[in-house]
């Protein structure tokens, strides 16, 4: 099945902004997408959560745009939009009817060029409160909500920037000042630290003219500080275990492993391993733990790809009522071990690849995803062409490579086991606060 090739242009403005345009006129829609090469990995101790708080500030207005007006203008143009922050990057994106592309480009340029002119203490305080509620909603007031922070804390040493979560610490957010925000902006939000991708129903030379007009006046920052060395040993070197009492009715076991960095072929193999271990009814762990032995309510296994030294491979199993937690852990780990000893069958691999191929076909059908992938591959690997070669890389993985990647990664001396257990009830019958 042929996955269509994405044709794109790739050039730089004199100020260093990388501009990638992928024309496609199937539907009258287009996506505008900006990746800044800054994420929570750029944060230093005492200033965690900063990249993400800053992302919120980016919607609070700039020289020619009022507070929250960015959202209003894009939605009134019939568009959708958002911004997200992750360990390796921050991205902002709008999908619009194609005759509104110029507006989206102008909006992105105005905030890249003049955010600080609209920055106020009120807006900063307001968004700090919003972010605190985001943390409560996404992590604190959610069953098992602390798993990510805990796994990452164990898998990366305290002096590694992946050790702390993107949402950051509330104490650090409280301490954030306007000057901190100004310095962060001045350092990282520069055209030479960003990629602008536009995909869809647009004309390439017209987009270039708009980019010149709106982004052209923004000066580069010639001295973006280089990121320190994030490399670390391939293996954790020990098994780390933690038992977490939480407001949960059922125990759940999380497994975390240090895995090859994003871009390493070994991680491609682990992605396919995740599919054949837990992706659907016929997958190994699902079939055994959920269906045959009925030990688990649900299971998962997937990778979180990162570029800074190591990625993470995460798995979990929710323990069914009345089932012994250790039994579930043992069965889960047995399946990981088995994959490390025996290569999967040809049929298992073929099925995993067929699904991967169809997923890719579906994902790349949307202009929003195409623009985001182009920005991602350009930002992280300096190679937007990966949008057309990643699938071939997945399809070239052999069953022996999956076995070897499993054996190298799913090791006892490379794993974190987090076991969530229900909080003990007190004498009133209520869970203790």
């Amino acid at each position, binding site marked *: 099945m042929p996955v269509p090739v994405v044709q794109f242009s790739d050039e730089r403005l004199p100020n260093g902004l990388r501009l990638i345009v992928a024309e496609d006129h199937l539907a009258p829609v287009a996506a505008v997408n900006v990746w800044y090469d800054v994420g929570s990995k750029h944060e230093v101790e005492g200033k965690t959560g900063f990249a993400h708080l800053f992302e919120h500030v980016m919607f609070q207005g700039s020289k020619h745009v009022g507070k929250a007006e960015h959202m209003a203008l894009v939605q009134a143009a019939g568009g959708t939009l958002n911004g997200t922050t992750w360990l390796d990057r921050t991205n902002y994106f709008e999908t619009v009817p194609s005759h509104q592309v110029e507006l989206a480009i102008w909006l992105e340029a105005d905030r890249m060029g003049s955010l600080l002119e609209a920055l106020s203490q009120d807006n900063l305080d307001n968004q700090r409160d919003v972010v605190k509620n985001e943390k409560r909603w996404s992590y*604190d007031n959610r069953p098992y909500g602390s798993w990510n922070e805990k796994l990452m804390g164990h898998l990366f040493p305290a002096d590694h920037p992946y050790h702390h979560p993107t949402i950051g610490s509330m104490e650090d957010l409280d301490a954030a000042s306007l000057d901190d925000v100004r310095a962060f902006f001045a350092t990282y939000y520069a055209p030479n630290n960003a990629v602008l991708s536009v995909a869809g129903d647009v004309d390439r030379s017209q987009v270039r003219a708009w980019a010149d007009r709106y982004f052209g006046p923004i000066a580069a920052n010639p001295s973006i500080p280089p990121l320190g060395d994030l490399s670390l040993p391939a293996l954790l070197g020990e098994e780390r275990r933690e038992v977490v009492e939480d407001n949960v009715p059922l125990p759940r076991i999380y497994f975390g492993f240090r895995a090859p960095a994003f871009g390493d072929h070994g991680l491609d193999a682990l992605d396919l391993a995740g599919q054949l271990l837990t992706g659907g009814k016929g997958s190994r762990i699902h079939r055994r733990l959920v269906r045959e032995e009925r030990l688990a309510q649900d299971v998962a296994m997937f990778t979180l790809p990162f570029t800074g030294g190591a990625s993470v491979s995460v798995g979990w199993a929710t323990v069914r009522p009345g089932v012994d937690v250790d039994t579930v852990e043992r069965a889960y780990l047995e399946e990981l071990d088995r994959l490390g000893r025996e290569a999967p069958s040809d049929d298992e691999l073929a099925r995993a690849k067929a699904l991967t191929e169809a997923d890719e076909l579906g994902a790349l*059908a949307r202009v929003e995803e195409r623009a985001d992938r182009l920005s991602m591959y350009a930002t992280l690997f300096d190679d937007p062409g990966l949008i057309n070669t990643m699938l071939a890389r997945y399809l070239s993985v052999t069953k022996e490579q999956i076995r070897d990647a499993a054996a190298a990664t799913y090791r006892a001396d490379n794993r974190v086991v987090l076991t969530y257990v229900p909080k003990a009830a007190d004498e009133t019958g209520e869970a203790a606060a």
Partner: protein
Amino acid sequence: MTHDPQAQLVAERPVPGQPRPYEFPQTFRTTLDNGLKVIVTPMPGRELVAASLALRAGAADEPAAEGGATVLAARGLTEGTEVRDAIELTEAAERLGASLHAESGWDATSVGVDVPESRLGPALELLAEVVRRPSFPEAEVERIRDERLTDLIQAKADPRRRADEAFIGTIYAASSPYHRPSGGTAETVSGLGSAQLRDVHARGASPRRAALVVAGDVRHDAVVALARSLFGDWSGTDATPAGPIDDTAATDARVVRVVHRPGAVQSEIRIGHRGLPRRTPDYHAVSVMSAILGGLFNSRLNMNLREEKGYTYGASAGFDLRRARGPFTARAAVNTEVTVAAIGEFLTELDRIRDEPVTDTELKAARDFLVGVFPLRFETPGPVAGSLGGLFIHDLPDDELDRYRDAVEAVTAADVQRVAREHIRPEAAAIVVVGDHDQFGTALDDAGVGDVEVVRDDVDPAAG
């Protein structure tokens, strides 16, 4: 060291270019001799095809004692057929690069598959096998029933799901199916087995209440030929049509209910009442009004509670339009200490949308969003097939989507105020909060929004 903050940016806002004309893609409708509707939307260049068989049979049609049977039966469809067990079925689909899925909601059951066009034929064969020859194996049904029972234990612990469940339980009378989750309660689900699931499926699976919808890079005649060969001899049972759905409200007066969760750092708030059916003549005006009140990012609720007060990560409101009157819900998760203040802001906004006309700016923004986002919604086959299936389920006219943008454009500020006054009723709105009552109970009593009933969940012994 830094870039120049005084960069000479272009101050003038770009004006939109000439919109490229967009029409919802041409759609072909055929009815087979047995009554099955075949709806095909060719979308050139869209290789990943979305196909789904939509049945007018949903959880609202089931007897109260079998609550959850329809949702469970849909799950059971992919648990085995007369010729293949669940694993064989899954593996056959995976070899095609296809994901086969079946689900039920209040109004409909659908069996769908997303598959590359070159393998549409064999994928539709699997779909037909699942719809026409499911076996509901005893052991698998027992397992998926137990999984649902376990899921209900988890739902109770999740503040969001607990709030949703407490809200519908508060606003609908016990006689209405909408009073319970569509997946049923522990009491009703624990009695379900293969026999009930088979009955549910037999009642609902008939070509006379089904539509096969296919969107993607396909040819109309080729899909009809496939449909004829796979479903042409399907007769199904001639079940009596489902009767009207009981959507009786529990009360017309204010109820305030707090589900006490000691130590909760946020309060999950739900405020609302029984709303409207999908076939309301006010559909387009209500869409505009909801967008202004709580749909857009810059909706009144979100601007007030998030961007001005900082109480929440997001506040919203909307109507869940079903065959009968689904709920109108305003919602947010707020900081525990501002729980009572947030409830006050919600009620203020519910009053305000009724009492004053919306501004021209608000009206234009909402209409422009709904009209402008239309082509974005239908970029890929999945949403196209989903929307066409929805029209069939609700028995809406074929040109409903073609008329949509003009109908939205025609909505006036007076229309918005009229539908707000008719369909938003703050005095009848229930207020449901899942949070730490110890922290805000006194303030809530003092606020005078109504008599407060406190619910204390027992710790489930099965969970310990």
